[in-house]
């Protein structure tokens, strides 16, 4: 408990808690508790999104006119803690947490008016086209090209690691529209429908066995120029603004604290030597998570003050993802062989296949493996360290 709550805030907490308790259907609760990555399925994500939307709690931090809640920082913190406790399905962040804030900051009135309500209502389901095979950590060297042809851009090239590309209705992407002295210049930020002619999607199978990512190929895909966000050749500005939200927009600590609490229960059942070793490491992690929680709260206050998270977001992304991985390490260890089980068939809601071990074990390995990507996507940990040493320390 880092913030002292008023009576009103306590009442708010009770309200949020009651909402989660009643709003989650058994299937959504199952989906939330059996996630194997930071994403839920499109179906579960949208079902849960609709419930939040109807409640008016879908995008608390957005401006009120676009659906925000005008909550205080404390209220947002309470909501994050209760959400971590209730474990609903994950919302797809691409529209709600990434493109949405980017449009709010850099979009035209027309773009805001058209897209924001559709994002909220789940009418559009977005994916993010950033990385390319030769442009990963070195994102600015991306080659996927868009050539202006009258009122359109014509796209050719490919994007890779595009989460849920195969399920998305739209993509926001970075394309090259020019070559200048710095690779960051000449990049443009575009919005496009995934059913446009010339798009091919090839799912990528991951180490976990799942295929939530895909590679997307563009063959003379025509995009209306009105779908450009920001100026031509100046898409990097939009991308940087958006990346700060992707990296540091949220509060990861409440979820990590819940995971630590779950682990504590698991650890209690271990044989002595393993239990004491695990508890020592867990307590060590807990101190880091608590520190991160405070830092995230301060960052929220800072974001509110300046409008966007700033370069400190890199630090929070770095610490948050590494702590998340450290916790999954402990989870694998705490469950022993049950935490190593490979039984995808038993995962579905009301599956007929009896699990080899406890239900918690079924998601452990897939989540562990998928979560290794957390220190790679949205700028690898190495890139975050580069950013901190340059932007913050001036090295």
């Amino acid at each position, binding site marked *: 408990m880092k913030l002292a709550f008023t009576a009103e805030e306590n009442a708010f907490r009770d309200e949020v808690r009651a909402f989660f308790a009643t709003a989650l259907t058994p299937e959504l609760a199952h989906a939330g508790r059996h996630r194997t990555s930071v994403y839920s399925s499109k179906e579960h994500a949208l079902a849960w999104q609709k419930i939040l939307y109807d409640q008016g709690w879908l995008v608390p931090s957005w401006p009120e006119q676009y659906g925000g809640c005008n909550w205080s920082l404390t209220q947002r913190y309470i909501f994050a803690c209760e959400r971590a406790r209730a474990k609903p399905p994950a919302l797809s962040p691409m529209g709600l947490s990434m493109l949405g804030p980017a449009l709010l900051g850099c979009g035209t009135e027309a773009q805001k008016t058209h897209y924001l309500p559709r994002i909220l209502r789940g009418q559009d389901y977005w994916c993010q086209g950033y*990385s390319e095979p*030769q442009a*990963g*950590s*070195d994102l600015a*060297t991306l080659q996927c090209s868009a050539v202006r042809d009258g009122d359109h851009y014509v796209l050719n090239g490919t994007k*890779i*690691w595009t989460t849920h590309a195969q399920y998305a209705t739209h993509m926001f992407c970075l394309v090259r529209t020019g070559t200048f002295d710095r690779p960051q210049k000449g990049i443009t930020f575009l919005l496009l429908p995934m059913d446009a002619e010339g798009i091919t999607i090839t799912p*990528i*199978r*991951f*180490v976990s*066995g799942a295929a939530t990512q895909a590679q997307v190929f563009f063959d003379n895909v025509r995009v209306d120029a009105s779908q450009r966000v920001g100026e031509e050749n100046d898409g990097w500005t939009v991308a940087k603004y958006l990346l700060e939200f992707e990296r540091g927009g949220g509060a990861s600590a409440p979820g990590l604290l819940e995971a630590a609490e779950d682990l504590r229960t698991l650890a209690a059942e*271990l*044989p002595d*030597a*393993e239990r*004491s*070793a*695990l508890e020592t490491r867990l307590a060590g992690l807990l101190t880091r998570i608590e520190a991160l929680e405070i830092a995230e709260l301060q960052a929220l206050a800072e974001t509110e003050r300046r409008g966007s998270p700033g370069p400190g977001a890199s630090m929070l992304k770095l610490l948050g993802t590494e702590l998340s991985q450290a916790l999954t390490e402990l989870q*694998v*260890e705490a*469950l*022993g*062989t*049950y*935490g*190593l*089980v*490979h*039984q995808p068939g038993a995962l579905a809601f009301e599956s007929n296949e009896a699990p*080899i*071990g406890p239900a918690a*074990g079924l998601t452990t*390995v897939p989540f*562990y*493996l998928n979560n*290794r*990507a957390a*220190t*790679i*996507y949205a700028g*690898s*940990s*190495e890139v975050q*360290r580069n950013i901190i040493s340059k932007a913050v320390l001036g090295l």
Partner: protein
Amino acid sequence: MALVLNEDQSFIQATAAEFCASKAPVSAFRALRDNPGPAGYDEDTWRAMVELGWSGITLPEAVGGTDFGWQAMGTILEQTGRYLAASPLLSSVVLGASALSLSENRALAEVVLPQVVDGTVRLALALEESPHHQPYGAALTATASGDAVQLKGEKRFVMDGGSAEQIIVVARESGAPGDRDGLGLYLVPREAGISAVAEKLADCRAYARLTIDATVPASQRLGGAELLDAVLDRGRAALAAEMLGAAQAAFDQTIAYLKERKQFGQVIGSFQALKHRAADLFGEIELARSTVLDALSALDEGRDDAALAVSLAKAKMGEVLHAVSCEALQMHGGIGMTDEFDIGFYMKRARVQEALLGNQAFHRSRYAALAGY
């Protein structure tokens, strides 16, 4: 400790490397993963290993073995670990055959070991009943009645437990689960009353849950806790050797990738932060290698600190393999996350190897206890 490999050991190592590279490369493991077949390994490949003498490498000449010892066995497992070559070496030759060769039940050993050497019998050790390594945790009951013993209970995650012809069952004769006293190891033919259900783990090796309700002659008893400890230590040291090969392979593949992948206009291996991390990993692998060689030597020389050396090796090797497999994936970036690339295999294999026969916490604690801490 032998500080360098002798001629025999060097020859065996070279043979194993060549064999695995040509006959059991990672692509063969990938094919098995997608299509495991009844045993979870390729029977032809296994027969070829038997013909190379690998099934008798630690066994005396009297039963058809070559008696080259554990260091020689380690050099082979290092190579199978490197290539993820699937075989019942660990289950049958290391764990199974050791239980017979170290047993005081010479009569039984003299009958069965020649069959292990010539490949006609495969063994497996049925020990665990919980998801955590508990050497003395057996609850499965052994009830004597006259000259017969009835074994009744369940065993979990038995490596190659679905394909071995004979199972060495760790049973409780007296006392309570957790007691070191009161354990008995019995050699039980599968048809005597063992049914198996496959249990699949992340490494895609073959494990089984065994339901046992079998009655065997008392003469099938191999020994008690002392034998079990000795068998497990051989298994741990051998497993550590396999892990060494895996760590080296993951590291080598990563170094190669660092020299090839370009970002920011240069190969990523030219970035000093990655160089230094690679240098540190190199040092850690060398340290772990030293502990593995020492553990194998300690077994060969019958040193009285063998248990200490084995726990040191399993703990250290587990820690290093863990770090190497994580760094390997991180340094590969997105491409390392794909099933198409081999590097993920090593991570999944590593997590299971770490847990088998005692994880880092188990062996650190055992090491500390043995060292008097």
